[in-house]
């Protein structure tokens, strides 16, 4: 089995920032905020976050914020809850949440909750359990979960539970590992994991592991490194991760590395990108691969960052 080419991946991520004229750059322009989250979190897991210029990044993030409190994917782009969470997560990585007007950001997110407890992604109203997770994760990170109707939010998520124990994007939608992560993550953050049938969901999730060790997102689909995050984090949150063959999964992820130029792809021998590099490294972190910082399966941030936000805060309050 090969090893994690950590140094190469650091170089790859730093190089993506400088790449000219690439197709990836063009299609990434509008979701640069997500790209920043994927790239910077990966650097932090690899212990290299200090190599970037914090002030530059923070001032760029602030420029992406709108009067509504929400963030766009880049300067001049419309706000959306997707980019708002990434902005909050990146600021959390740098311990810079104090630059935010917390009430303003939380008001934006709170305003996206619908009567049935679900969340829209923006003013146009697209509803999806992804947005439930994003809203709950974001509000929790800024300590404003009390501003939404948590009970209704949880009930909506539970209404998207299927006969196989999994969750879909809306009630009746097919179970999909990405959606399952969102629903389990939101239920974990709100202390509602007891609403899940853990044994049934755990079995469905471990059925996602295929012969080569990789995980797929739905029955009969091809394995993909991104599910090393979605499936694995869900299994950890419901305490069933020992049901899969971890050694085989580690091998699958390592086989997806570009050993020459760094980066990780969806499957062995495909082209690498930042998204899969993040999910590969984050997956290995969940698998306790040596040399990587531990990542929190619900907040998708390094454990030390999450501890700093919650434990640190309690201490401050006491004094």
């Amino acid at each position, binding site marked *: 089995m090969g090893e994690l080419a950590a140094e190469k991946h650091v170089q790859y991520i730093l190089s*993506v*920032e*400088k*790449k000219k*004229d690439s197709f990836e*750059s*063009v*299609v*990434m*322009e*509008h*979701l*640069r905020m997500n*790209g*920043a989250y994927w*790239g910077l979190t990966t650097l932090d897991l690899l212990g290299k976050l200090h190599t*970037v*210029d914090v002030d*530059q990044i923070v*001032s*760029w993030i602030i*420029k992406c914020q709108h009067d509504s409190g929400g963030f*766009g*994917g*880049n*300067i*001049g*782009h*419309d706000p*959306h809850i997707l980019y708002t969470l990434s902005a909050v997560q990146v600021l959390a990585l740098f311990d810079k949440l104090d630059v935010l007007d917390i009430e303003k950001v939380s008001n934006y997110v709170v305003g996206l909750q619908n009567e049935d407890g679900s969340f829209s992604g923006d003013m*146009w109203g*697209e509803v999806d359990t992804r947005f439930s997770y994003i809203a709950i994760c974001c509000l929790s990170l800024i300590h404003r979960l009390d501003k939404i109707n948590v009970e209704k939010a949880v009930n909506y998520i539970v209404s998207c539970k*299927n*006969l*196989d124990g999994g969750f*879909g*994007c*809306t009630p*009746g*939608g*097919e*179970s*999909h590992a990405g959606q399952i992560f969102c629903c389990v993550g939101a239920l974990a953050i709100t202390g509602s994991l007891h609403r899940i049938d853990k044994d049934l969901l*755990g*079995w*469905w999730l*471990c*059925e996602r*592991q295929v*012969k080569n*060790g990789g995980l797929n997102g*739905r*029955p*009969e*689909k091809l394995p993909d490194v991104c599910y090393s995050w979605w499936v694995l984090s869900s299994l950890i949150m419901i305490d069933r991760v*020992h*049901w*899969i*063959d971890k050694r*085989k999964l580690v091998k699958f992820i390592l086989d997806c590395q570009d050993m020459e130029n760094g980066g990780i792809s969806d499957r062995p021998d495909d082209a690498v990108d930042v998204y899969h590099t993040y999910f590969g490294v984050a997956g290995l972190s969940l698998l306790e691969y040596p040399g990587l910082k531990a990542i929190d399966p619900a907040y998708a941030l390094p454990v030390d960052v999450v501890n700093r936000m919650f434990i640190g805060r309690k201490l401050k309050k006491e004094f």
Partner: protein
Amino acid sequence: MASSDEENRQWIPFQQRPEWSDVTPIAQDDGPNPVVPIAYKDNFVETMDYFRALYQADERSPRALGLTTEAILLNPGNYTVWHFRRLILDALGADLHRELDFTETIANGNSKNYQLWHHRRWIAEKLGTNATSKELEFTKKILSLDAKHYHAWSHRQWVLEALGGWENELYYCDELLEEDIFNNSAWNQRYFVITRSPILGGLKAMRASEVNYTVKAIVAYPENESSWRYLRGLYKDDDHMWVNDPQVSSVCSKVLSAKHNFVFALSTLLDLMCHGFQPSQEFRDAVDALGTPDSDERGSDLATTVCSVLERVDPIRVNYWRWRKSKLFQAV
């Protein structure tokens, strides 16, 4: 509108188009020393510079609509461009049926794009039931290329619930499952139809015929995870009926005695026993025939043997089956 003629035509820079001479393009502000400085292709840069100019001026005009068409063709993922396009469509009172055609053009390029589907739903919401058949046809077309397309299924479910059109949906599921019995999306849609269609009478009314259908599917392909889970779903909230329906135990027995692709049959048998099912000698013989258990397990109860066989034939999930076995002892 993007006709193939237009696509084939040489791209003319906006600076050279007389109808755009009054607009001053606005360059992307990446901030000082950007985190991810990006160099774009020239036509993309120029199109977006003009887009920013019109967006900032909030110009909701026919030429602005044309500009969003070009920008979307260059990058259908740009969320702000779609958003502005909807404002323009509203302001111009544009023909929304033509807009449906436009989204179809985009879908031909890349249909895995949240903006596209969201835009499509926005249009369909405005058109109401006038859009029902067109939307069902559109998703059918996408699903004919990728039968597990998550966005298409999600849109189709929304259409059925919001606009109707349930009449042929179960038949459509039949068709897709005939093409690929392993298509989990189609099984999911089938469950959606039998539990939610206002014309079929719900799960209880559909159960008998659905059990027949599913049992046939299982016997044909016993390695199919989807059909087994569907069968279980047919007895949702009625474990007693599930345990006591001879059709369920007999399909397990049938698959086990064929000694081929029997993992789900064994796991279903295990679930049944955990819920109180009393297996006959026939089951014991069928399980014993699957392989000699370890000497220390000879004579142990059937559920333990089932777990042992599963540990052996499904080694990647050996820990799951061991856990199932340990739970049997806890129950005793």
